[in-house]
């Protein structure tokens, strides 16, 4: 008898859940079913998968390499005018962004600096994915005329004169330091015409010495970035408390408006569709029709990123990579064509999003209200026959939410901000190396 009754009871219970789905008038916004809780745990940092393997960088997880990387990351002496470091555009206090629409080094760049938190999980770097590893990415800004504006040979000379001991500790003794010392200050295969000319005058042995050290420097910068851990935010505390069935506990962590926002984020607003997993991103490329910052010079996004990748001299498949060819599957099977590449940009993480305005690849939206307004009634991508290879793909649907709902989503997004970890050696440049040595 009981065996029959039970399923009926269960059915009634389940059907009542269906009818209350996501309704704004739901009586208890905190009432999550065990299936909800099981689903939501996928978003907590405590459920983040281990950091992905990095076969192209043998020292990816070496602490010594990361320490050297940290020193280089904050060292502005390594730029042309002595004033720009990686940290200038990726400031820890701003969650490794700079708060600018277009980042500035020696000049103004075309894009806004993305946060570095969680980037180790991404198969592609830059907004357009023009680099296939963090070490290769790190090399880009060093030589970019509007960022650190260094020439490859001069940069290598400078780093090795300042950090020779640390470098040799990680990579072993430099066998022919004399070659490095004698290098011209300004020689680079991608610099101005004179730099390029000087570069081509170097012997292939000299060029190899420079490229080896240059890629190694990228690798220590990558090792540093892999050490950056995200501290749990209020959202993580909420989800973790729910897992523990700590009924009263989790209710006090997020406000009603924030929980409404959470329900909208996963439900009606469908933000979850791309911003998913503990890092709130799928690391894929999408065109959401964000306005062009310059319609006379459209940004082709991933389409251009793929063209750059194919020509890049520091990919996983290159001589400077530590990986076997079979370990470079993303590059080997790189998607090179398709309308969906045009104007597509990498889904950014929403971790710390409320603290990292402005938004989009070139800071087109100044605050989250503007971002949400775009998603609520988006304009399809700008299209210009002359400049675009084809009509860009469009990846979003209008949300048609009311003002209250939009406010709730913004409230929810603020729960993803991690507290600044004052005592974390990797986050805080003010902690000296000697302190970490005694701490260890």
């Amino acid at each position, binding site marked *: 008898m009981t065996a029959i009754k039970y399923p009926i009871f269960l059915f009634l219970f*389940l*059907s009542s*859940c*269906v009818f*209350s*789905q*996501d309704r704004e008038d*739901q009586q208890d916004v905190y*009432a*999550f*079913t*065990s*299936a*909800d809780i099981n*689903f*939501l745990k*996928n978003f907590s940092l405590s*459920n983040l*998968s281990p950091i992905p393997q990095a076969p192209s960088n043998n020292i990816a997880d070496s602490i010594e390499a990361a320490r050297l990387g940290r020193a280089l990351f904050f060292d502005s002496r390594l730029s042309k005018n002595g004033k720009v470091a990686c940290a200038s555009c990726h400031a820890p206090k701003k969650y490794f962004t700079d708060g600018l629409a277009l980042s500035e080094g020696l000049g103004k760049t075309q894009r806004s600096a993305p946060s570095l938190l969680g980037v180790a999980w991404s198969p592609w770097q830059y907004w357009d994915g023009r680099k296939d590893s963090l070490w290769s990415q790190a090399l880009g800004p060093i030589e970019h005329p509007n960022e650190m504006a260094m020439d490859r040979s001069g940069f290598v000379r400078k780093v090795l004169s300042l950090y020779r001991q640390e470098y040799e500790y990680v990579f072993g003794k430099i066998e022919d330091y004399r070659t490095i010392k004698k290098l011209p200050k300004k020689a680079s295969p991608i610099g101005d015409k004179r730099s390029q000319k000087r570069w081509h005058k170097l012997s292939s042995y000299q060029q190899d010495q420079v490229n080896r050290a240059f890629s190694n420097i990228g690798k220590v910068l990558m090792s540093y970035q892999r050490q950056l851990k995200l501290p749990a935010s209020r959202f993580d505390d909420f989800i973790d408390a729910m897992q523990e069935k700590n009924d009263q506990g989790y209710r006090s962590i997020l406000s009603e408006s924030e929980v409404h926002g959470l*329900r909208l984020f*996963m*439900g*009606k*607003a*469908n933000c*979850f*569709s*791309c911003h*998913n*997993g503990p890092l709130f*991103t*799928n*690391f*894929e490329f*999408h065109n959401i029709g964000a306005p062009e910052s310059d319609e006379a010079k459209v940004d082709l996004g991933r389409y251009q990123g793929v063209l750059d990748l194919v020509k890049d001299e520091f990919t996983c498949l290159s001589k400077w990579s530590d990986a076997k060819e079979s370990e470079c*599957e*993303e590059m*080997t*099977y*790189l*998607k*090179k064509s*398709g*309308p*969906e590449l045009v104007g597509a940009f990498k*889904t950014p993480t929403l971790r710390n999003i409320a603290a990292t305005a402005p938004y989009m690849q070139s800071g087109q939206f100044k605050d989250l209200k503007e971002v949400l307004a775009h998603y609520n*009634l*988006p*304009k*399809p991508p700008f299209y210009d026959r002359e400049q675009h290879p084809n*009509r860009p*793909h*469009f*990846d*979003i*649907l*209008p*949300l*048609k939410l009311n003002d209250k709902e939009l406010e709730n989503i913004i409230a929810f997004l603020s729960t993803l901000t991690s507290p600044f970890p004052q005592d974390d050696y990797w986050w805080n440049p003010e902690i000296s190396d000697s302190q970490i040595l005694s701490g260890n």
Partner: protein
Amino acid sequence: MIFKVNYNVLALCLSLTFFSTVVSAVPSKQSNNLFNHANNLLDKANLAEKKSSEEIVSANKIRKELNKLRSKVRKAKDSSERNNLTKQADNLASQLKNLQDSGSKLREENKHLFKQSLEVFEEAIVERWGKKIRNRKPVSMDSETTSFISHNTRFRSVHPNMLNKMGTPTDNINPENVNKEMSLLVPALAGQNAPPDLDISSFQISRKQQYFAHIEVVSTTQQGEVLAPLNEIHKWHLILSNLSGEPIENANVEIIGHMPGHVHGLPTEPRVTEEVEPGVYKVEGVKFQMKGWWVMQFNVTDEKASSKDDSVVFNLVF
């Protein structure tokens, strides 16, 4: 006389020994029979299809004549002419009905026979390729995947003036696809509306009926599971046979994958990297960045084929 019989027995014994040990890869009698049977069914199916088309063409001709006659009836000057024409029209109408009935009956017969023939081809190819076919089930995805980093909803390309006609992400969710145990209505988990009668078999015949093909995920897990992973590059085997069960060797295979509901393709460019054994191709670089309905098309160019631009299409629903 006695000697002759002995020779025959000896020859039979020898050929049996030879058959079973030296050339075990040669199609068995069983598989040959199955291929013959499958081909017979396919021929019948095609014949039914041909007849059905012919009948529908004739039916269309008759319909035109009938329309002409009916207009003549309306214009007829006197009742005898009208009666006469009406009789002719009624006669044609019944012919039309007969043809339409028989045409649709033949079409049903074709569908039935075609389905049957595919089933027998599958049996035949399994018999013929034995060990290479490890999974006969449709290609499916690990649903327990924890790193569900994927986007999964009906996105599409639009023209600017379409925008106001577009629904919201939750507007078109099929209630059957919703997890009823959840209070959260998550559109991205509701999947795509793949047609209910979609053929998702991992065994398919090519468009021009030159090849019969099978796909399966090459297992990378220790448990020997054959599930496609989400967001991970993985390998497949593609088995290509002609309709008599002979392997298609040295074929040039182009792979195109897309999601009908999203108007986008695969995130990678998979390709054939090796012919592991005659007719068995290793496909590397396959990756799915989301669940839902995928279509994988293999364009096959084979030197020996009579028609060079043939393709095999598989539907996958994750």
